């Protein structure tokens, strides 16, 4: 997945000289997760560079560059560290097109590794997507595999709107099925075949990972893989929808599936209250009420800070997901 992100950036730096890549440790070093490895050497220090440690500054200069015709792709090293940039993102970047009557816009991409499962404790584990899905003017995507990590990132860079790209850091080196003692790599995974050339995964389209008739399971990021295991443990036949794109989201795919299965379980790492799952649940009952055989349920992180030592009791586990699916089947 790291190589897929690197390949997307490399393709876009080669294709469009207005693309710049920058952030903390992004330049010479190639990023703390190696996603920008080799890009400075290949494309030059004026196109791929280190910045001062200032997330607010990074977002603000991206705003200015995007306004003035460039396509900046900046990295916030951990999603937990995006909050000094929150004012710039929420009040400035998201609203520029609207506030200027369409005369100015800033088509920037903000990449940020998110989610838990790496013993990161409070401040290297959070999944703050709903704090951005709640901000009109931003597009928000959340990759889960090497294939969609590259395709979504290229779509984000080519978008005329600002896009926040969450990358599940637990999956950088391999999928995660909920067992911390098993650490598979991406080798052999069907979604790990990543073309070297430019391609896109359109923003706004979900991916159907599994097809089934009993229940619809919706997830994004690392939880897509944990849900695969949870579905297996439940013994049920489920549609598993990898949302991929949170704003705008593929409501049609979700509604189609839930009308077929009559049941819906939504899974995310972030805390439950005001999580993006609440939006899914509300929309599903608005659109599928007469098809539902059971209440729509959510399996999420608890409404607490993300713990260090006990993180496996915090993150939704295959067992919790399986129980929620069985609960939905019992109606």
């Amino acid at each position, binding site marked *: 997945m790291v190589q897929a992100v690197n390949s997307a950036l490399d393709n876009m730096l080669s294709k469009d000289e207005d693309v710049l890549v920058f952030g903390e440790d992004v*330049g*010479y070093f190639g990023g703390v997760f190696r996603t920008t490895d080799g890009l400075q050497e290949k494309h030059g220090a004026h196109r791929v560079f280190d910045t001062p*440690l200032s997330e*607010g500054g990074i977002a603000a200069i991206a705003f200015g560059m995007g306004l003035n015709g460039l396509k900046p792709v900046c990295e916030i090293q951990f999603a937990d560290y995006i909050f000094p940039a929150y004012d710039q993102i929420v009040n400035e970047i998201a609203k520029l097109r609207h506030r200027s009557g369409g005369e100015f816009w800033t088509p920037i991409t903000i990449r940020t590794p998110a989610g838990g499962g790496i013993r990161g404790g409070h401040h290297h584990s959070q999944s703050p997507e709903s704090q951005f899905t709640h901000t009109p003017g931003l597009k928000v995507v959340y990759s889960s595999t090497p294939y969609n990590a590259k395709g979504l990132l290229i779509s984000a860079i080519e978008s005329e709107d600002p896009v926040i790209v969450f990358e599940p850091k637990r999956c950088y080196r391999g999928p995660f099925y909920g067992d911390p003692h098993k650490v598979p790599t991406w080798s052999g995974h069907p979604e790990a075949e990543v073309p070297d050339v430019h391609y896109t995964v359109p923003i706004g389209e979900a991916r159907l990972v599994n097809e089934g008739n009993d229940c619809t399971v919706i997830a994004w990021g690392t939880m897509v893989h944990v849900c695969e295991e949870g579905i297996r443990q439940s013994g049920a036949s489920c549609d598993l929808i990898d949302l991929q794109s949170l704003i705008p989201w593929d409501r049609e795919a979700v509604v189609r599936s839930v009308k077929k299965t009559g049941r819906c379980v939504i899974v995310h790492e972030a805390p439950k209250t005001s999580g993006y799952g609440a939006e899914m649940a509300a929309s599903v009952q608005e659109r599928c009420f007469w098809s539902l055989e059971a209440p729509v349920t959510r399996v999420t992180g608890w*409404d607490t800070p993300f713990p260090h*030592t006990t993180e496996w009791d915090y993150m939704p586990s295959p067992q919790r997901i399986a129980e929620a699916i069985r609960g939905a089947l019992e109606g």
Partner: protein
Amino acid sequence: MNNDGCETPIRVPSAPFRPGESASFEEWSYSPSDLMMPDPLSCEPKDTIPHSTGLIRVLGDDGSRSGDWDPVISDSDLLIGLEHMVRLRIFDDRMMKMQRTGKLSFYMRSLGEEAIAIAQTMALEKQDWIFPTYRQPGAQFVRGRDMVSMICHCIGNVEDNVKGRQMPVHYTYREGRYISVSSPVGTQFSQAVGVAMASAYKGLDEVTITWIGDGASAEGDYHYALNFASVFRPPVILNVVNNQWAISTHANLASGSSTFADRGLAYDVPCLRVDGNDFLALYSVTKWARDRASAGLGATHIEVLTYRAGAHSSSDDPTRYRPSDEPDVWPGGDPIHRLRDHLISVGAWTEEKHRDLEGRIDSEVMAAYKEAVKFGDLAQGPYPSSDTIFTEVYSDVPWHLQEQWDEMNRLGGD
């Protein structure tokens, strides 16, 4: 070298040396006789212009102490400081070994920077507040923290006082007025100003000391701190630890100023730049700053010039971005060796005593380690109860949390 001659359209600074190059620094021209000590109680910010561009030193290259900044401190106190520095280094080595064998998830050493928090905390009073980053754990030794408790925190086992919630090295030690460490860099710097404002409001003789890295001084919090300190003049000591490196980001990328110290002058705060590997100079500038703070004269801004001799953390590999010999040729030397050699030169210490000290501390650390792992290690457990996920989120447990807590336990949390 700032790439000033580069032909790229944006000036992008680099580091002085990169892997494959040989690092070489000019010898420092700074000497202990360079800078006078202004009267702390009548000094104006502009009087510190030379102190913000020069370098305050007490220990000369020959190991002797001299100059206007030479502090009043007994040899026995210096030996205590030396012992704490040795303790921290040996402790760090043991913790790194634990990390490498899977007994800790992560670790950060203070290698090369041991003098800073130890000398500066020794220069303070017991009631003063310590608002550290992850690179000032040594202050806890000065404040008397039990080493077993520190190791239990780093493991995140059942005896961890923060209950396995934070990553290792993110200590909390209220008894020692050592405030909880947070991962986001820089946040403590401006918060410390608030702690100091509260002390002033309450009319207490309490000073707050805080630190920020050269890299993190690019965050807004650094500037908030200086500006609020400039406006409200609270009793706070604001240190920028310039250890040259923020993970792979060289200090050249943190600021375009000639020194970190002199940025404070624009905020009308007195500014000092001190040799961060010189225990005596650190002790002295901190006493000076405390005297001013305690007298109601407000903040002092200090650049502590040092070098991060180790990796940023156990997740970092500095050979990817700097020459492997760079730590060895850094002109500031080793803070432990410099104080040790000084004390030997004045007859207060011997090499043999130093070796004995290292042996004794090694045994102390080993004993503490063995005691700590009795309460569990990361590889084997036992771990804190998963109930600790739900406690202390709020002062009470609201119904929605209670519901989730019950759900976790019903599903088999321990």
